[in-house]
């Protein structure tokens, strides 16, 4: 059995959020990067909404 820290999940979420923010900032500086940045911002919300719907229908 691998012992996992209860804070590992939240820490991963934070690191993922920070990494996404860094990626967005860098993308926005490139030509045509704005549309990619918008897409990268909208995708996590779509994913969260889908997860919410899945949770509701399986509850």
């Amino acid at each position: 059995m691998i012992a996992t820290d209860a804070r590992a999940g939240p820490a991963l979420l934070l690191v993922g959020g920070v990494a996404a923010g860094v990626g967005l900032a860098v993308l926005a500086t490139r030509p045509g990067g704005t549309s990619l940045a918008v897409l990268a911002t909208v995708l996590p919300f779509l994913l969260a909404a889908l997860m919410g719907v899945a949770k509701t229908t399986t509850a």
Partner: protein
Amino acid sequence: MIGTIGSLVEEAADRRRWPLAAGLYTAACTGTAAVLGGALGATGLLARGLACGGIGCAAWPSVGAWLIGMLAIAYAASDLGLVPLPRPTLAHAVPVWWWRRWSPYAAALAYGGALGLGLTTRIYFGAFYVLCALAILQGDPGRGALLLGTYGAARALVLLPASWGAYHHRGASAEWLATSPYFDLVWAQRIVAIVLAVFGSQTVVTAVLAAFAPA
């Protein structure tokens, strides 16, 4: 939370009176939040005026972006339970007896006004403090009012389905609120924390890239 929407839950019995109570509640919440944002913006404007007299303001936008970005990342970590951060609130500022003693409309107005100030109830989302800091650093009363007013409106509108649902589950309203998938506080905190982390790191990196960009 049920205390703050008690008057709206009572009014849900009447489909003609509920929109008026809900409207008063939303308007009061948005109004006091906008007043708070305007006051914070005016405070920032005053502070900037005093600071500029001594040290100059050329570096202010860059320093402000750094501060807001780091604060957003810090509160994202706090919302995820990784680090404890202060969350100033005024205890016992919203008595539960308001909706029992006052008329439903007066109580809806009072609860909306108190909730719009933000500090009168427990704040589960660190984004509120980041918005307050942003309003101060922008130093613009109008933008501060718009920023916090939008927050107040969103905060009020979230409670409206809760009041309707609590009425229709009258026998077990507290249990319904605790188990409803639409009011999952942990998930909501996580989603807002990720958004805060994205916003914070993007703000910091944009400021860094601007500082090192060739003139």
